[in-house]
């Protein structure tokens, strides 16, 4: 086997390995480095998914591998730091929802099925920050509600 053949085989194998390792890395990088890097330091990034079946807001990833086989964990309260900038990534794995946070004049923001929608706000205050789905999305629509709470007062309580 000549050197030329060896180099070609090595290059071919490396290109395949680069694909196998590189693609997952690129996606990880986009989600965990590039996207957070777009915002000022200290920005709180929250991924929130609305699930019509059961009326659940969850921070669990509802994606291909988990859609049928994992019951998502309901989130009733999410801790926020008063004064911090918050970016919500809202997604829906089933039907159209709408996110609304009236006391901070956020929304209603439509969250179409299969989409991820970005919503940013500043937590000027953390009093009665109730959020809910305002688009009738199923029989459990009324359960799709939660609350942002002040992380400092929460840790003081504990």
């Amino acid at each position: 086997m000549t050197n030329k053949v060896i180099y070609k085989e090595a290059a071919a194998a490396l290109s395949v390995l680069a694909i196998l390792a590189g693609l997952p890395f690129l996606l990880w990088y986009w989600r965990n480095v590039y996207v957070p890097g777009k915002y000022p330091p200290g920005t709180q990034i929250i991924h929130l998914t609305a699930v019509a079946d059961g009326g659940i807001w969850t921070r669990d990833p509802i994606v291909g591998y988990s859609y049928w086989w994992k019951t998502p964990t309901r989130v009733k309260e999410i801790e926020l730091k008063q004064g911090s900038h918050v970016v919500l990534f809202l997604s829906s794995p089933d039907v159209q929802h709408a996110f609304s946070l009236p006391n901070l004049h956020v929304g209603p923001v439509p969250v179409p099925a299969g989409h991820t929608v970005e919503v940013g706000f500043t937590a000027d205050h953390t009093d009665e920050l109730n959020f809910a789905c305002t688009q009738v999305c199923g029989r459990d629509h009324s359960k799709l509600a939660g609350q942002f709470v002040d992380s400092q007062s929460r840790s003081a309580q504990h």
Partner: protein
Amino acid sequence: MAAPQTLVQPVVVPNTTTEDNAWRFDVFGRWPWVKRVVRMPSFQFLLILPNLLLFYFFLITGLVGTPVGNRNIIIVFVWILWWVVLITALVPFGSRVWCTMCPLPFFGDWLQRRALIRVRPGKSPGTGNQFFGLQKRWPKKLSNIWLQNVGFLFLATFSALLVTRPIVSVVLFAIMILLAAAMALVYRLRTFCNYVCPISGFLSLYAMTSTVELRSSDANECLKCKSKACIRGSEKGWACPWNVYMGKLDRNNYCGLCFECVKSCPNDNISLYLRPFATSDVSIKGYDEVWKASIMLVLAFSYSVVLLSPWGRFKDWANVSETHNWGGFAIYAVVQILLALVIFPGLYYLSIRVAKWYAKADGLSVRELFLAYSYMLVPLGLLAWIAFSIPLIMINGAYIISVASDPLGWGMNLFGTADFPWTPFLPEWVPFLQVVVLLLGLYYSLRGLHRVALKLFSDPVQRNRSLIPPTVLLVGVTLVFLRLFIG
């Protein structure tokens, strides 16, 4: 001193089969650069690599992307874009060219050959190359396409899940990749592709209609050839992964267009030809192929009813993962399987019995006529699938534009088109196009039927009588599709 070069004229080779009188155009003869390209050692690898990248990406998106089908690239790009391109362009105009670039057996080939580009001369059972693995022989009883028939019918029964739920597609492709790899380590050559891969099953059938063929240029050269390197391989090319002997190849069904034989042929006697659509390959050689034709035709009908028709009940029956209506699903599955395996083949058999009786074809057995005339199901089946695929791309094609920018539903906007709205493209034209395509399918089927009949019957009265019952069946099937598509 070399002879002066003469201008190479376009090589149009009159077909030697007198009843065909079809033209053939020698692509390698006219454009030698094409032959140089396919002879490159890295040709197949360079063709497969982008597809490997894409399919790997699709698998990842299916796993960690949104579970909503029309927002996940694996569903939109595979079951809309790839499927439509495959059935409307690649197969009719490129035969099994998808197999040339298919990434599914990639790892299997790599394990079996321990090479991605180079060829290993040596000795393995029946070949002049060194292969690794157990190199066992595939069981004789399974050396047919029945497994592919059953596999495809099984997948089609769960198609509502397959084409809407990303994870189901991931599981399917992952199983195929792993199975191909495992089989490559146990059996010879591309056993997975030849006997198991469900895609290969229908590609083999519809490749018969294709406008390209890879054939030996001079049959006498093959007769005199002592190496038979086309099938055995040599230091220049791998043994045919499809186990096809080019010296006698007369149809496209099982030639995967890998072009290894072009590399290994010591007599430079293999060329790629263009030919008219649905003209040359008309011989069906086994019951497995007849049933494949029946299954595909019935499934074109079934898919159209379930996925395109206004009868939502059938869609609900098929969509059992969401509706949990197992009773309805059972009805849908049983009816579909019975239609494909029993009822339609029974109707076809009936038409053959009537044809034989009416034509008084005592010199022909029922089996001979049953096999020979079954070619008529091939062009109509292909065009029926194309007719089904037209609304797929025209109504849902806009998803391709938005999903390209946000393939996982993560909120990306790679090309600025993530918010491109769902926009049907000329929906009012869909039924007209479907009618034209179906009628073309009927035409080519009737023409193929007539071509086969010319070979079987010298007496024109007998021939015409034998054609009537199958023609009635073909027209009936076409009318059913027309009723379905245009009401």
